[in-house]
């Protein structure tokens, strides 16, 4: 056994950033050792992409479908990317629930780990998964024959929009996990929010073909903002204003959700 140091260690101030990096590293290590969930998370979107892409191929020929949007696969790809980001991030709170179930959460909360860093780490982890999954989906769409005139920049903005969406909903999911601490409640709330949000957007269907109230509601739907930004960016002539406002709105949602979810740690402490 080596000699024991006398001076206290571990009392130097550390920033939220370094703590976030350590905690994100832990989550990524787990993912690296067990990438099952990353792969399973891709099965559903790939089925949507290939099956829906074939099944509804002629939808683009319907009168009212926005002209010039290319084939249905090109139309569908941003929608599927956002759906994947949405569904995966709605489950993000599960990581907290596992940590609460063991006493990992309590050990972190009694350590100097910053609450903000604990929140950022799970959000960043979700964002990294979203980057990988989004690129895989775009890749598969390209192989299946879709073409994106927006090019690399368009794909980049699509991934960015997906990441912002994932950040917002993983924060929400984390907050719900901290407040309820129940897997069943988390599942119920995820399903209750994600499915309506998906169908109240143009993810799989051009809203010109939907009742007008759906379009009105979709204007307030973050999923729709992400889909619109991505779909615009994939076009040959991108309307930068449309993309910019949608990304700005998404960023605002991420900040608000992140702050609210971090505050949920206080409620967790009060009820412990």
């Amino acid at each position, binding site marked *: *056994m*080596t000699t*024991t*140091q006398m001076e*206290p*260690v*571990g*009392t*130097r*101030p*550390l920033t939220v950033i*370094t*703590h976030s990096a*350590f*905690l994100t*590293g*832990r989550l990524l*290590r*787990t993912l690296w*050792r*067990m990438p099952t969930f990353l792969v399973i998370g891709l099965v559903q979107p790939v089925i949507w992409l290939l099956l829906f892409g074939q099944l509804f191929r002629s939808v683009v020929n319907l009168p009212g479908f926005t002209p010039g949007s290319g084939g249905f696969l090109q139309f569908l790809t941003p929608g599927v990317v956002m759906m994947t980001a949405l569904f995966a991030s709605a489950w993000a709170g599960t990581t907290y629930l596992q940590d609460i*179930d*063991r*006493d*990992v959460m*309590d*050990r*972190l*909360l*009694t*350590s*100097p*780990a910053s609450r903000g860093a604990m929140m950022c780490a799970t959000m960043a982890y979700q964002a990294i998964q979203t980057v990988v999954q989004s690129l895989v989906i775009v890749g598969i769409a390209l192989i299946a024959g879709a073409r994106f005139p927006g090019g690399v920049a368009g794909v980049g903005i699509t991934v960015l929009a997906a990441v912002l969406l994932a950040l917002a909903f993983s924060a929400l999911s984390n907050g719900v996990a901290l407040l309820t601490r129940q897997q069943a409640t988390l599942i119920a709330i995820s399903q209750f929010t994600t499915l309506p949000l998906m169908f109240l957007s143009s993810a799989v269907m051009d809203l010109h073909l939907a009742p007008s109230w759906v379009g009105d509601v979709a204007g307030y739907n973050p999923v729709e903002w992400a889909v619109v930004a991505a779909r615009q960016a994939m076009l040959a002539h991108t309307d930068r204003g449309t993309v910019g406002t949608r990304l700005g709105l998404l960023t605002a949602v991420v900040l608000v959700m992140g702050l609210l979810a971090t505050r949920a740690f206080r409620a967790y*402490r*009060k*009820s*412990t």
Partner: protein
Amino acid sequence: MVAVWRSAMALEAVDLVKTYSAGRNKPPVTALQGLSFRAAKGTVFGLLGPNGAGKSTTVKILSTLSVADSGSARVAGIDVAAKPDRVRQAIGFVAQKPGTDPMGTATENLLLAGRIHGMSRRDAKARAGELIDRFGLADAANRPVSTYSGGMARKLDVALGLMHRPQVLFLDEPTTGLDPQARSEMWHEIAGMATDEQMTVLLTTHYLDEADHLADRLAIVDHGTVVAEGTPEELKSELRGDAVQVELAEADGRARAVLQRVPELREITMDGCTVRGRTDDGARALPPVLGALEDAGIGVTSATLARPSLDDVYLRHTGHSLETAGDEDPKGLEAAK
């Protein structure tokens, strides 16, 4: 840096009160009702009591996990309500359930804990290696924790709490669920800890022998308050004298009256065929006790003398034996009040 603190007390809890909401239309559950104790620096202080007595709630408040409804507490001289961040730098926390990441190895878990506490990578590596050797985890250090036995995982939990050399270490039921072998190994580790690491340990347990063996001082906790406090020896000597236990051949109601006429014996209780009493000097009391029973024609199968145990102390202060109380469901215990 943690502020210089002149008090010799590492832990001070004053009149802690905590109630939990039990849900809609149910009265709130009182976990603590005015719990107070003090533990000196460099000692092992035990909180002894059954599940639901309030031990874990006390640990949660002192470790900043939970907030008391009223009362105050200082850990390493720092007020837990006013400066929880500073308290967190000074403490190590070993919860009842595992605090390890099952997908990480022992080394990875320790390094993360050290880095979170602001240790440099080099310091953290050296300290992790030291703790792995000390807890006999060297062979398993690079295996995921999910492959560990209960005893190994528990040792790693304690090592995680020690990683940053805390001033105060909380050990919440460190040996619950361990087999006797792992338990005695853990005792061995804890016993040397306060001196080797120059720190204060707050140990909660519902095992009397554990409290007796490890704690320099202990507080018996029942229904959210401290009912007795002292060193194990002090608590036992308060009971004055030896316990006498006589097993009758058959239950006989006269035995109690007969024994009450023996001047050496007091505090006589009967439970079926078992008669218990207390005496200042067991060796002198036993012959008249047996004589009186024989004169009355009451058959005796055995008679034993025992030095007072902590269970006797516990029984005396709480009115129930810890061995039976410990098995009760905590919620049931609260509801029974």
